[in-house]
């Protein structure tokens, strides 16, 4: 067998070897063949068992794009794992690929697999506030947004089309009201976090509704939050009141509360 033939044989049998599907003789042949093979020699080296069974780092790093490219079944397995695995979730949060705080909605909606809806979301990097409005239970049910994100609008999640709207505002104020449909019970709010918080400090994002009642409280891990450091909040209510909503950041050790922004909601009747 020529080198070329041997290389072709290795290529054709690598997946089967990796999955332990070769018989003993083929296995010996494969291991011998890959001894000096730059791409496959690693398959013969012991691996740290702790690193096995977590989402590959390359996929976590490209999570948003992976949600659009990978086979639905494969990504569903990844999503499920991310939902259950604390360390993988922490890594996704570190990279700001969908930091979820479900406590704010669980009392209203219960048991919804939010993460499966979120797999492919890409938030505009420049967005200071990105609001993704969804209605429950009948997706999609979006009303015309005020301003659309140029990039990821009409993001397709799990086969459903949703709109992403971003008020064209610097951090602080949404200039125009967000129009919600009357049956909207949930929307997602993405908030860019400041980079000047002391390292190690924890913080809480608090969202106040139109009547100044606390709608959501989200505790963050210790700063710093690396860019794009976008915290996504899921806000849920049986109905959203018309009026101005406020988002504040309460940083441990800081006496003053930081304002992250305001936005107004109009409800279509």
């Amino acid at each position, binding site marked *: 067998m020529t080198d070329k033939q041997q290389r072709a044989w290795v*290529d054709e049998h*690598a997946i089967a070897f990796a999955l332990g599907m070769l018989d003993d003789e083929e296995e010996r042949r494969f291991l011998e063949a890959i001894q000096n093979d*730059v791409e496959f020699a690693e*398959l013969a080296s012991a691996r740290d068992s*702790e690193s096995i069974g977590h989402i590959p780092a390359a996929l976590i790093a490209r999570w948003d794009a992976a949600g659009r*490219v990978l086979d639905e079944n494969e990504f569903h397995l990844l999503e499920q794992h991310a939902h259950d695995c604390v360390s993988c979730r922490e890594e996704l949060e570190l990279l700001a690929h969908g930091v979820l705080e479900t406590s704010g909605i669980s009392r209203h909606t219960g048991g919804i697999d939010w993460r499966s809806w979120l797999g492919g979301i890409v938030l505009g990097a420049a967005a200071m506030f990105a609001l993704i409005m969804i209605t429950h239970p009948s997706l999609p049910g979006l009303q015309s947004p005020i301003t659309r994100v140029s990039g990821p609008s009409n993001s397709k999640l799990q086969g459903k089309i949703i709109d992403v709207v971003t008020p064209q505002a610097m951090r602080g104020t949404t200039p125009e009201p967000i129009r919600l449909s009357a049956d909207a019970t949930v929307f997602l709010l993405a908030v860019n976090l400041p980079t000047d918080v002391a390292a190690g400090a924890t913080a809480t994002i608090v969202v106040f509704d139109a009547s100044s009642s606390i709608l959501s409280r989200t505790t963050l891990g210790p700063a710093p939050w*690396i860019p794009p450091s976008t915290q996504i909040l899921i806000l849920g209510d049986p109905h959203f009141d018309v009026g101005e909503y406020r988002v504040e950041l309460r940083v441990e050790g800081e006496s003053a509360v930081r304002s992250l922004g305001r936005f107004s909601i109009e409800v279509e009747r």
Partner: protein
Amino acid sequence: MDWQTVRRALRRHFGPKLDPADAHELDDLIQEGCVRLLRAARREPVEDLQGLITVIARRTFQDWLRRRYRNERLWKPLEASDELAIPPAVDPRFGDLIERIEFMVLEVFQREARPECEKLARGWFSRRSWKELAEELGLSHAAVRKRWSRCLELPRRVLAANPLLRPLFGEEKDD
């Protein structure tokens, strides 16, 4: 950990190594380096952050290069034409194909509550031999291989349902 500093350091490592044609990979490589650093920091306390960043950066870059060629080799034999572009889902940016398949197999075992299969999978994916695994389980070599073969039936069905991966298991692709 000061992630701003980490990202800057990783950028300094990756930037000069990347071919101009791959410059768009820089941010993703930095992200990947951050994930690996976090994983390393979980395993043991970081005493020399700069040293660890250097090691992580080197490994991340080497793995990125390796999986680029490896994925291409895994895919190419299936195609009559060498010029056919690698499909997006096999794009090495999304990780090593073998590592992804191993993850899916393990995840299926976990979802389906197959602890015996999961244990065998973890052992084999750690590159331990069937002989070692058989001894550990107090089974014969043949019995372990048979058990593993049965274990694989379910994940193989799951993997074969993926039109992209199906041909990797010797089955025909969809037209």
